[in-house]
């Protein structure tokens, strides 16, 4: 179950709970494009799933800070995307994606894996039960790493992957536009059950990132390649 034990939640490795929206995206990329492609998708999702910082005032009202955005150009893909202006968030994503990339590389499998971004709510339980994590949206990016033979193929891959990522962004926006379930805006005492309030400049919904390396049959490699990278709870 969850290696982060006490303060963490019920394992979300299982199939998403009921009422949890699940979206799957697939990309085929060259090894050196893995990081940028993953960051592009994760940042685009988090752009839509982050708000400004809440400031609670008297009488139960709150005001919301401002979210800045910035353009990011990819070096290995003919592609650019927009991300939230938050260094902390960017670092957290880069760390997760970096580990995923390393795991892909060293796995020795065919270069297939998936990285998941899950949004969840916490439900406090009484002692001795630990808090429950209830996912409400799960994004899975399946990655297939290809090896290319020459520079010409690489150039084509740059363009093709760029086009594919454009399609993915459009897909993500479509999902976001459905205006389906979102946790309701919390009171001050509940805000940490819904949002990650640890960042200083923006406030994403509580999320966790995990990844798996799969072998060619699509089943999960049995070694301890599976990890949960938790950025929301300080351990």
């Amino acid at each position: 179950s969850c290696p982060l034990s006490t303060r963490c939640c019920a394992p979300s490795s299982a199939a998403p709970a009921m009422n949890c929206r699940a979206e799957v995206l697939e990309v085929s990329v060259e090894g050196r494009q893995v990081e940028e492609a993953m960051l592009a998708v994760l940042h685009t999702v988090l752009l839509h799933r982050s708000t400004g910082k809440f400031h609670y005032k008297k009488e139960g009202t709150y005001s919301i800070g401002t979210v800045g955005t910035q353009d990011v150009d990819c070096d290995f893909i003919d592609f650019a995307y927009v991300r939230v202006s938050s260094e902390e968030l960017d670092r957290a994503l880069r760390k997760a994606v970096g580990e995923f990339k390393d795991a892909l590389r060293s796995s020795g499998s065919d270069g297939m894996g998936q990285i998941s971004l899950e949004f969840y709510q916490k439900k406090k339980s009484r002692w001795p039960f630990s808090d429950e994590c209830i996912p409400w949206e799960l994004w899975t990016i399946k990655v297939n790493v290809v090896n290319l033979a020459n520079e010409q193929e690489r150039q084509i891959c740059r363009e093709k992957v760029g086009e594919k990522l454009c399609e993915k962004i459009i897909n993500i926006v479509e999902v976001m536009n459905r205006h389906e379930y979102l946790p309701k805006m919390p009171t001050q005492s509940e805000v940490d059950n819904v949002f990650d309030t640890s960042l200083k400049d923006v406030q994403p919904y509580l999320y966790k990132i995990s990844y798996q390396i799969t072998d060619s049959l699509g089943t999960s490699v049995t070694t301890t390649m599976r990890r949960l990278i938790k950025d929301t709870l300080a351990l």
Partner: protein
Amino acid sequence: AMDTDLSSQDRKDLDKFIKFFALKTVQVIVQARLGEKICTRSSSSPTGSDWFNLAIKDIPEVTHEAKKALAGQLPAVGRSMCVEISLKTSEGDSMELEIWCLEMNEKCDKEIKVSYTVYNRLSLLLKSLLAITRVTPAYRLSRKQGHEYVILYRIYFGEVQLSGLGEGFQTVRVGTVGTPVGTITLSCAYRINLAFMSTRQFERTPPIMGIIIDHFVDRPYPSSSPMHPCNYRAGEDNAAVYPSVEDSQEVCTTSFSTSPPSQCVFTVTKAHFQTPPPVVTDTLKVPVMGLAFSHQLSSSRLSYQPAALGVGSADMGYPVLFAGGLNAAHPHQLIGPGKEGGVPPIPSQPAHGTQADQERMCTPLDGVHYSAATPSSSEDTETVSNSSEGKCGSPHDLLETIFIRKVGAFVNKPINQVTMANLDIPFAMFAPKNVELEDNDPMVNPPESPETESPLQGSLHSEGSSGSSTGNTHDDFVMIDFKPAFSKDDILPMDLGTFYREFQNPPQLSSLSIDIGAQSMAEDLDSLPEKLAVHEKNVKEFDAFVETLQ
């Protein structure tokens, strides 16, 4: 709830939201076609005026155009707001690339909470717009504009006209938001024949369609607003365009309530820049801020500052971006990152305005140099002091809003790794970064000269010493603390004097040493008969090998 009619307060709020949503939509689209990377800062404290809780800059000229097109109306059924993006070559050919449409349809959602859900969904829609504007083909084209073509925008209100996009155009939906008065839809129709253009240089041939299209002649709405370049440069003839524009910025500070849900405390103030006191309208509660607006943007990279407002008509030019002037005669003088990338040239025509304005307005280029001190300070949440902070209520605030300029993959320029720019020597950035490597570099620390003196070495020295006062050994040296210009101890492990001394006595090349050379040659000659004998013995093997190669 029983009342299905919108309360008048909700109605007012909704109209305001839609109006500002329309204005922000235009800003996002035009800014995404400027040809530069956009960067705004997050701010944890709501300083007010950031509509929809997003830091989206307001380029005054663009707001002006949008307001002009809307003429006080709001998008409604049959009345859509359209932003047309087109490309114009330096030869004058133009082509429509995209039409972004903000439409309203009749499908109402009476149940939805205006001040809360609608507002947040509009915010989400703007985020989607930010994302989508980077994935249509015109984005990459616009990043490469500047030399052979420019990207123009035009705003019109009324019926959507898609005929200029050619056959087979595609549509992408950005999103929809239901409101009690209708459903807002935002979408983009774009020409697809350009898809291949994004991967190669724009060719100086007739446009892809094979027809020279001159939209200014064929335009069905000749009275509609003229085209504007996205990366608009102020020129002299444009300075007079907005002399009497009343620039009123409406400020929005919203608070939300969780109990009861969706109660919105909403404050709007209006600041006039040409009349002294700010006029406060539409206040529901005590006004929070009298500012026009503020954006917490990094000041480490400065590429745009609008003119000071309110000090007479001369200052009312609204240059958007600067580097050179735009005038009617040479529309293609617009300078963007272009293909050469890098720093745009110094403006040849400083933007119109007073001296003070000129100083401010010509700053973009100063800021483009990467200040090594804080390359990522734009990301810091420690807000850079903003001119607006100390000037609450003053209508004559200088709006310091700044674009961050970064070099990205689309720009053909090596990224300067300024790591030692803080050293006080010229060209410090070109000094080697890693001092440790210097110690092992034989070019810097040559190996010791060999002890033996060959006749050649002697002769070398005799030649060398004739011209220089330095002798063969270091004994004759008088040590001077030699600090020549452009050198610093920290960078190189030796000073110039030492360097000079070291290289006065390079080590003897072994091949030049006669003894060694003669020796090896003699050895070779001696061993030849032996070698020949061995080869003769193995001649059969050699023949067999040669056979396999046939």
